[in-house]
């Protein structure tokens, strides 16, 4: 598989990571190497195989619909880059 510079720019935008024009070539070369490794698995015939995400094939539990957590907003917001009056501050989103 080959990745174009446009592919890299598109993925970087989807991932919300700034990749400068100078960096694109370098990123492209490294990712192509990794995809070459990954593409080894494409040849395996897996028709009819059930995909697995958990070795013991467990079923996710449901919990009771009950209030279990206390309001810990002040403590949890202590790491915020910018917060005021219980809100996280970000650049204006809606004009």
């Amino acid at each position, binding site marked *: 598989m080959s990745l174009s510079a446009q592919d890299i720019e598109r993925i970087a935008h989807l991932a919300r990571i700034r990749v400068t024009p100078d960096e694109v070539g370098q990123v492209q070369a490294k990712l192509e*190497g990794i995809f070459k490794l990954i593409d080894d698995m494409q040849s395996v015939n897996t028709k009819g195989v059930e995909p697995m995400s958990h070795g*013991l094939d467990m079923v996710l539990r449901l919990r009771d619909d009950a209030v279990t957590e206390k309001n810990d907003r002040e403590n949890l917001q202590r790491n915020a880059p910018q917060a005021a009056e219980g809100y996280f501050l970000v650049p204006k989103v809606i004009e």
Partner: protein
Amino acid sequence: MSWNTFATVAETKAALEAKQVSAVELAKHYLDRAAQLNPGLNAYITLNPEKTLSEALSTDNKRSKGEVAPLLGVPIAHKDIYLIDGWRTTCGSKMLENFVAPYTSTVVKYMADAGMVTLGKLNMDEFAMGSSNETSFFGPVKNPWDTSRVPGGSSGGSAAAVAAGLAPASTGTDTGGSIRQPAMFCNLTGLKPTYGICSRYGIIAFASSLDQAGPFAQTAEDCALLLNAMAGFDPRDATSLDRAKEDYTRDLAKPLKGLRIGLPKEFFGEGNEPGVLKAVEAALDVYRKLGATTVEITLPNVKYSVPAYYVVAPAEASSNLSRFDGARFGHRAKEYDDIVDMYKRSRAEGFGAEVKRRILIGTYVLSHGYYDAYYLQAGKLRRLIAEDFKKAYEVCDVVMGPTAPEPSFQFGAKADDPVKMYLNDIYTICANLTGQPAMSHPCGVDENGLHVGMQIIGNYLDEARMLNVAHQYQLATDWHKKHPNI
């Protein structure tokens, strides 16, 4: 007070119970040793002597009041991926350089309930992505056996701290080999339990279907004592196994007569450095002398482990790491045009090159039109690999082979070639994809004196047997008793 800095957890526990040493004395000993040696080794990112000593004092007070707990007063150092309330928790990243955890992970809480005292937070590859500790924002950890070499990764600080006697034991996490490979590189015993045995709550997520917590120690017996404390059901982790507590030390003393060891031919091929194979073969001879038999097995799909892993792990990482957006916690860029630019610049500045690469791979394989070809195909390969192991367990009880194809390498040897670095995990990754328990124990050195590890992979929930196997080997050998001269 003179204290043997290489005392095992079992010995430390016994000395505390016999009141030959106090928890405060132990904490001071390891903190002093860290103050002296950590500037050279870079194993710890954060030490907080005030907190450590106050925890130690409180366990001494408990003991004097007659309270008991299995590991009361025994010091432990934690990988800096575990949240501990009030401790800076960086995950080896600039993104979390100043992040102070607002709550405590379940594993650390369970260990504190067992009486353990936190010594500090250990260096690691950034977001646990790496096999050499060279991706840490806080600089690489040095291997205490040879400081020109890597300690392994991602739990490199966890391995180096115990190997150098800066802590009697430590915690790590293992997503593709991040406990077992550094255990080999630093001559330690390390265990990745069955997926779901240890809670993931409060452990910063990398790849949620693969991440597991586990211990590093000098012996299998210590790992059993530590796993007793770490394991247990947790309603806060949706994939935690709801089952009764077990005592992982219960089978340690069992003789190995009749044990059937499966040797996958895929693990004994040409990819291994000759010195690694030689040490592993010699260890297998010891096992045979102890009454075990060996049988050749085949795991035909195991060769797809690395490609499947480099789809699943980046895919899950790209999703998990989307929470680092510069809005709620973590690094925020100083200058930006609008909110999207704030996300992009914050993430570009906060993440290192390897983390960004994996997020980009993950984003690509999950993007529109590619899901079936990548994530779904990788999920199917996980099933085929698991079925290979299931077949193998019809003729053997445990699977063995080298933990990694080559021992510790020099700094910079693979840092510029991600694919070369990834192939170092060729034997460890399969147990994460299937969720099986796996461990590494010291089993000798190669011709350059570099340490070799024997990997033991077991069937689901078979930790007690694996620890028994490694313990019996350690009763007959002394590789695990060797320490670096520092």
